Structure formats: structure tokens, C-alpha cells
């Protein structure tokens, strides 16, 4: 099971993989801000396309990505549908107008603006997913920690990321083993045969030993770290964090530009004057 994670522990060798942790974390954070701040398809679509190219270039495990993608697309479509059901005329709020091109009854009307809004929203959510996906498929947990540290996050918090990830496969293996031993003792794991309340009770049976043994090792691990000087200095360096290459410098520069643009956009468009309009390509009226 330890090979089935989406994130790679071993650094890959594509272009994006080779960027340093701080470059990737910065770009990721700025892209998240960028994608969150607007409902303008002209801004969102390029990011969608670029991150899609990024994911493809990283050669991820497609079998797994496909499963996750289809789940994400399904849930987002479902969400969009619910949005429509909740308020079919939501488009008026965003586009200041309503062009009804048909209706099922008095409530379920079909305004172009609502469909436009829902479409943009779907793309926005999918882009948000793609931004996460390129990040996950190109970074290692250690680079993630190093990147966070470079942003000024205290290293004790960064350690949570790398160290936590170090023990995930161990804990996952313990979980499997404990589950097996409980199954042999008579815990029924088959979803079809047990009620939810019953399954919760059985979960407790697995959790007690899992929690106790997991936290049992805390002191030993901490000893091993103290003996190697952890927590001694205010600063630390990272083995995995290589010096900036030219590609890193270019990316960091672009990230900075994007960041400045985002700040300007948020100040000028989102905060003042307060504006809820979104860009519509055509005036349907």
C-alpha cells in the first residue's frame, strides 16, 4: 500500500520536479490566492491550461489520477447542480441581468447568466483541483517542509510535515495489521453486514491499540532527534533544498509578478470598490 500514494517520496526527474521546494511552495500559494480571488474566466482558464500541462509533464501515476479526477469531477458537477436547484436565478447577482431562454416551471427557469456563472464556477473549482494536483505530483514531503520554512514558517511546524509523512506508511501498516488481527478475533468488517453504529464501535476496537502503539513511539523518536541536536538552534538548513537554478530564479520572478498582480487585483477589484460583477463575454440582452 505504501506505493499507492499520490505524492512521491522519491524526487522525480521532470522539469517541475527539479525545481526547489521553496519555488514550488511559493508558486503553489500564489496560484491558490490567484485562483481564489476572482471569477474571471480570462484569468482562470490560462491557469487551468498551464497546470494541466504541468501535471501531464510530471508523468504522474495516471491510473490513480484518473480515479481521483473522476471523483472530483463528479462531486463538482453534483455541487453545481445543487447550486442551480438552490437558486436558479443566481446569475443575476453576478451579471446584474437575467436573460431567460426557457423554463420548466415558475421556479426552474433557464437564465443564460446562471449557466455562465455555474460554468465559470465549475472551471474555477477544477482549476483549484489542478493547482493542487500539479503541486502534489511534483513535490516531495521534505521539499514541502523546506519550502514552508523558506516562507518563514517555524521549523518545528515544518518538521510536522516531513516527520509526519515519514511515519504514515508505518502507521498505515500497523493499521492494516491491527485490523487483520481484530478481524480474526471476530470483528466484522464487511460493510454490507453491519450497521453504521456497529461499525463505529468496531472502529474503537481498532483505534485503541493503534493510538496507544502510535503514541508509544513518541518518546523514542524524540530521543533520537534530541541526540542529534534537534531544537538547538533557531534556524536550520535542509538537505533536500538545493541552491536556486536558473529555472528556479525565473519561476520565482514570475511568481513574484503574479503575486504583485494578485495583491493589486484584490485591492483594486475585490476590496474597493466592492464589486460582485463577473466578466461575461457577451451581453446577451
Amino acid at each position: 500500500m505504501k506505493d499507492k500514494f499520490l505524492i512521491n517520496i522519491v524526487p522525480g526527474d521532470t522539469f517541475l520536479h527539479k525545481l526547489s521546494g521553496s519555488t514550488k511552495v511559493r508558486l503553489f500559494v500564489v496560484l491558490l490566492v490567484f485562483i481564489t480571488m476572482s471569477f474571471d474566466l480570462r484569468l482562470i482558464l490560462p491557469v487551468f491550461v498551464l497546470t494541466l500541462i504541468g501535471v501531464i509533464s510530471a508523468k504522474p501515476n495516471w491510473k490513480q489520477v484518473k480515479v481521483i479526477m473522476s471523483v472530483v469531477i463528479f462531486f463538482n458537477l453534483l455541487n453545481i447542480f445543487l447550486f442551480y436547484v438552490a437558486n436558479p436565478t443566481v446569475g443575476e447577482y453576478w451579471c446584474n441581468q437575467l436573460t431567460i431562454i426557457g423554463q420548466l416551471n415558475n421556479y426552474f427557469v433557464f437564465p443564460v447568466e446562471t449557466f455562465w456563472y455555474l460554468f465559470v464556477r465549475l472551471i474555477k473549482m477544477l482549476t483549484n483541483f489542478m493547482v493542487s494536483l500539479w503541486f502534489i505530483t511534483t513535490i516531495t514531503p521534505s521539499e514541502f517542509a523546506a519550502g514552508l520554512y523558506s516562507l518563514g514558517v517555524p521549523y518545528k511546524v515544518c518538521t510536522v510535515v516531513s516527520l509526519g509523512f515519514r511515519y504514515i506508511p508505518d502507521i498505515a501498516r500497523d493499521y492494516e495489521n491491527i485490523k487483520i488481527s481484530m478481524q480474526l478475533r471476530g470483528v466484522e468488517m464487511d460493510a454490507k453486514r453491519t450497521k453504521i453504529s456497529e461499525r463505529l464501535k468496531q472502529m474503537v476496537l481498532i483505534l485503541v491499540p493503534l493510538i496507544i502503539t502510535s503514541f508509544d513511539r513518541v518518546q523514542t523518536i524524540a530521543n533520537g532527534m534530541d541526540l542529534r541536536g534537534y531544537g538547538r538552534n533557531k534556524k536550520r538548513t535542509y538537505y533536500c533544498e538545493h541552491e536556486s537554478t536558473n529555472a528556479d530564479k525565473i519561476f520565482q520572478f514570475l511568481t513574484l509578478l503574479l503575486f504583485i498582480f494578485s495583491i493589486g487585483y484584490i485591492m483594486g477589484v475585490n476590496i474597493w470598490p466592492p464589486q460582485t460583477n463577473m466578466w461575461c463575454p457577451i451581453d446577451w440582452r
Partner: protein
Amino acid sequence: MKKSLGSLLLGKWDTPTVVAVAIGAALFGVLMNYGSITVFTNTRLTTAMLVPVIVGGLFGALPAAVACFFGNVFADLLGGWGYWFDWSTGNAVLGFLVGMLPVYGANIKEGKFDVKHAVIFAVIAVLANMVAFGVVTPIMTVLLYGGELTITFMQSFAASLSNITVLILAGIPLLYALAKRYAKGTNLSRE
């Protein structure tokens, strides 16, 4: 030994705390991926939510919140659902609040968890979910993603309901079980 409220909330952040938070986050990620039952869109009935309770019980509320936040990040890294800061923040707030056990005198490591603590825990679990998913997450959703309040509330409601179910129906028995398992027996005599 009396500890100040501040240290109970913030934790000590020595090496064992860092390790425990990391292990807690790892446990959270594992349980989120393997130990959950899907009930509604975006909502899974998961025992992962019990992890911050334990981390809080052992190390304080802030460590619980951090473990919960990064646990969520791990679940995303493993499963790749994409980051949703509205939900991660809600979870961290929830982790902080349900991790406050030492503040009201429950101490799992010393076997202290009784009916009084269970009642307080249950009340906090309900309130914490109302705060986290009734206030924090919806506000964040609207601010960040311009969501529809009705739907956000529907999702929040489902999430809260499943969290409360897990926290109370599985959490209280778990806390009892752990407290008893950690308790040192006194006056043991062979029969």
C-alpha cells in the same frame, strides 16, 4: 503540579510535542484514507476526527489544532482531493476546541476521564462543530470561493452531524477505553 491555562492551550512545543503532533497528523491522514465511511458529498464519517481529541488530551489544544490541520493536508497529499482552505480551517478550529480536554481537568495519561468530563466533552463537541462549520467554514467559503450559503450550510450541517456522531458515539467510548488502559492499577491483589 498546576499548569497555567496558557500552557494547557498552547502546549510546550518541545521535541516530544513536535513528534506527537507529527504522529497525530500521520494518524489523521491514515484514518481519513482508510478508516472512513462516505455518507454525503464532501462528507465522510471518519474516525480521523478523534485524533485531535487524543493529541489535545495528551499535549494541549494548539498541538491538536496543528495535528488536525496537517492531518487534513496529508489526507489531501495521499488522496489528492485538492485543497479547500475553508474546510481545513474549519477542521483546525474544531481540532483546537475538541482538544481542550486538559483545560477542564480530563487527563487521559493519568486515567482521569469520568462522566463529568464526558458531558463537558459532548457539549464542547456540539458547540465546536457549530462554531467550526456553522460559522468559520461558511464565512471562509463565501469570502474565498463566493459560495452559495444554502449549499454551504447544507454541507456544513452534514459534516457537523457526522463529526458529532463520531465524536460522541465513538469518541467518548474511546476516551474511556484509553483512560482505563493508561490508568495505573492500584491495590492489586491476586484472587
